[in-house]
């Protein structure tokens, strides 16, 4: 009798929470992920190009950036941006803070992926580009980056799925993304196990959908590699 009542209550909570949480996911988690990843990718590409440019000061700046970001927790970075910067007069809203934090983080990690991908393309490809009269930029754009893209899709997709999950950290700087909604509902219902499992389940759906999209993309990029 008692067990039954509890069961009904839980089902009630799940039914009533699922939609708000999914909504928060679609309204905040997804855009936050996409925006940060896209901006981060641009930052990563620029950083990777600086690293391979052979121009010492550029290389040094890029190295320093990657070193600092990879060596400090993302949570600490978010706290510095959102809670720390106001004390020097820079106040940034929760969502922009999260986007900035994630972009900087994605930029650092992915620059290493892109750099490794570029370096994995044989030197002969550059030379073949040069031999038909290309400049560095032309060879990079037409010959090297298209091939490096293919190489870097699997690790980048991993990093993307990682970011989907990391966005839950935005809850700590008051962004009402999915996890924060789960926390809020927990505070009123006292069912942490149910709600956090539900949040985990929704993250799982998101990452599964994204993994499948990655598979499709790899297949398309692989068309010229198979014999």
């Amino acid at each position, binding site marked *: 009798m008692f067990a039954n009542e509890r069961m009904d209550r839980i089902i009630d909570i799940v039914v009533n929470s699922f939609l708000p949480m999914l909504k928060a996911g679609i309204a905040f988690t997804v855009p936050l992920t996409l925006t940060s990843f896209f901006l981060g990718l641009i930052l990563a590409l620029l950083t990777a190009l600086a690293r391979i440019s052979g121009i010492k000061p550029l290389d040094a700046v890029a190295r320093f950036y990657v070193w600092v970001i990879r060596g400090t927790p993302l949570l600490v970075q978010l706290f510095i941006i959102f809670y720390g910067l106001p004390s020097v007069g820079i106040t940034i809203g929760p969502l922009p803070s999260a986007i900035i934090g994630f972009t900087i983080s994605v930029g650092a990690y992915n620059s290493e992926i892109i750099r490794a991908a570029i370096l994995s393309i044989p030197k002969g490809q550059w030379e073949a580009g040069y031999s038909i009269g290309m400049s560095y930029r032309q060879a990079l754009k037409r010959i090297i980056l298209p091939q490096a893209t293919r190489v870097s899709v699997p690790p980048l997709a991993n990093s993307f799925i990682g970011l989907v999950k990391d966005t839950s950290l935005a809850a700590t700087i008051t962004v009402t993304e999915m996890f924060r909604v789960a926390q809020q509902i927990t505070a009123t219902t006292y069912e942490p196990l149910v709600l956090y499992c539900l949040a985990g389940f929704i993250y799982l759906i998101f990452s599964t959908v994204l993994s499948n999209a990655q598979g499709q993309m790899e297949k398309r990029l692989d068309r010229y*590699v198979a014999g």
Partner: protein
Amino acid sequence: MIEIKNLHKQFGQTEVLKGIDLKIEEGNTVCIIGPSGSGKTTLLRCLNLLETPTKGTIKLGKFSLDFQDKKPVSKDKVIKFRQQTGMVFQGYNLFPHMTALENIMEGLVYVRKQDKELSRTKALQLLKKVGLSERANHYPSQLSGGQQQRVGIARAMAMEPEVLLFDEPTSALDPELVGEVLKVMKELAKEGMTMVVVTHEMNFAREAADKVVFIDKGVIVEEGTPQQIFEHTGHERTLQFLNKLCS
């Protein structure tokens, strides 16, 4: 049309080319032979500035470049100079993400900025010339080594260079595929293309070369017609090298 004077190339402390002087007439095919490590590839790569010579001058077509230590030639000049040359690589180095046709069109469309349709027509003509019309839409991974190398030749030809440089174009090929590539090269030679060919194919050198250059330890030991080099050489080192090849 090509004049190399006192060309030196150093990698770190080791001097690989120790003062090369060489003249190449327009329309001639020059074969460069010599033992492994003698500097043949380096010489060829200096000709299109994939390697920057440490010292010396290279005159090619419209340009004459003078190299001195610590006085770099501007990037723009390097590109202009290099655009007078075409190169065929030992490992083909085709662009794997492009079809045979796209490989050949690439330079026309994105370097020369030519009209795409015109470029396509020209690329198709070149493919026909190297006997690969049916393979236009194949990716390099779908072609045999010999076919890839013929695309490589067509890609270089598309840019209408003053001179074509070949670095052991057949040495990565299975023996039965060597012939089809050499045949294309012989045709080019006959049509009056200026070519510099580093090769171990002595029969090709004998048949197609106007001049054979024997290089050893970074210097030209001797140069002459194929007959002079292969039959009447008076040089001990040349003889040793040729004998080793035959045995």
